């Protein structure tokens, strides 16, 4: 699969398959196309060449009903993107009511269940701005989970957080990984990668440079670019 922004090719012949239940961590220098890659998977970005298939749904440029694939895929953003005009619980409820046509009572029950799972049910009546960054990101995770996706995408979920709040979000993600969710995480949290990833993918300049299990990735990187990157961040 390849993607261009005008003349600039951001993704070059990406060939990646992810098994059900697999946890993948994607890392690499900024501008390497890692965010763009996962944003292509729920059609927030369009690819121009090649094919993407998510749960037997194939994505094509200019497709009419990207909702079909988005229903399968939950996404967590770097900047949380909670809806500031809705309470925490409403943030979790409204998408269910709109997209899945659940009743208010159902949506509330499911919303509370997932807020409990990310350990902030007591904040449910507050507004996003009243919460810390870490709490907001956990709400964002709960909001995505309420849609009961088969796959979760994380786009640098801890990059906008104070260092102290990183771990509470990572703990939530680890818990999710342990429950068997298929996950693709763009992150620089190497501790997280080592702990939960089945595979670590390193990208540079729009290409997948290296893809291996975390043990091999950290102890014995093959590509010089990977070595350089790991040398800088570890």
């Amino acid at each position: 699969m390849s993607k261009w922004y005008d003349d600039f090719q951001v993704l070059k012949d990406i060939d990646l398959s992810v098994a059900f239940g697999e946890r993948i961590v994607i890392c690499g220098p900024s501008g390497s196309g890692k965010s763009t890659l996962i944003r292509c998977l729920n059609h927030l970005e369009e690819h121009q060449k090649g094919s993407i298939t998510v749960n037997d749904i194939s994505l094509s440029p200019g497709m009419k009903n990207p909702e079909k694939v988005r229903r399968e895929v939950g996404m967590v953003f770097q900047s949380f993107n909670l809806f500031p005009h809705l309470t925490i619980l409403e943030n979790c409820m409204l998408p269910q009511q709109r997209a899945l046509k659940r009743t208010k009572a159902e949506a509330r029950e499911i919303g509370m269940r997932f807020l409990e799972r990310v350990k902030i049910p007591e904040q449910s009546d507050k507004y996003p701005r009243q919460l810390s960054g870490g709490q907001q990101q956990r709400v964002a995770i709960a909001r995505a989970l309420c849609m009961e996706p088969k796959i979760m995408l994380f786009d640098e979920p801890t990059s906008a957080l104070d260092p102290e709040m990183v771990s509470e979000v990572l703990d939530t993600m680890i818990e999710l990984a342990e429950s068997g969710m298929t996950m693709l995480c763009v992150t620089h949290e190497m501790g997280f990668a080592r702990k939960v990833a089945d595979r670590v993918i390193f990208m540079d300049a729009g290409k997948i440079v290296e893809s291996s299990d975390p043990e091999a990735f950290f102890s014995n990187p093959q590509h010089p670019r990977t070595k350089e990157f790991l040398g800088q961040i570890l």
Partner: protein
Amino acid sequence: MFDFRFYEIWRSEEFISALLSGAFNSFWLSAVGGMLGFCFGLMLAISQDKTVFWGVRYTARSYIEIVRNTPFIVQLFFVAFGLPLLFDYQWSFFASALLAITLNFSAYFAEIVRSGIDTIDKGQLEAAKSLCFSKRQTLFDIILPQALVKVYPSLTSQFVFLFLTTGLVSEISVEDLTWAGRFISDRNFRDFEVFIVLTVIYILLAWLFKLILQGIKRLAFPWSVNK
């Protein structure tokens, strides 16, 4: 020193009732015109979106530009004297004034609401997309509530400003507050006193509008007030 003689106004019941009914007419012309103008302006603002059919988009854009770049008095005369010729039907001047106010307000409101829509963070749209909101749901559930709160202060002050320009409807003999002032000063020749009284009443009405608009904000967007 000028000799103020306000009793030249108070002594006549006719004058007082002219002022009261003038204030009342000014108030509700602006209130109703404001509400209708807001609804129409909202539609104009929404139709500026890139995804809207270009014919609609450019018509709306042209409309906004024409209204915002012509004097209200010209628009008023067009509605009051031009439209009846085009449609061969004579409305009351009151209805013409209301229509002119609605059309005028809508273009200003559209521009403000549009600017609010433009400030909504792209991340909000992406979140809505990833959560399978339809375009319409994204607009009404996510974008508009946030955009309206952001521009609410501008909308309020624009409305008050436009309210103050509605005195021009007295030119087509709609009996608003300015008309009442003219009516009285033509009879008692105390122009200065009359227009001081008008000033005070206009200020009071502007305050009243601001209060009402604050109240509406509390009711419509409780999340923006609640700390």
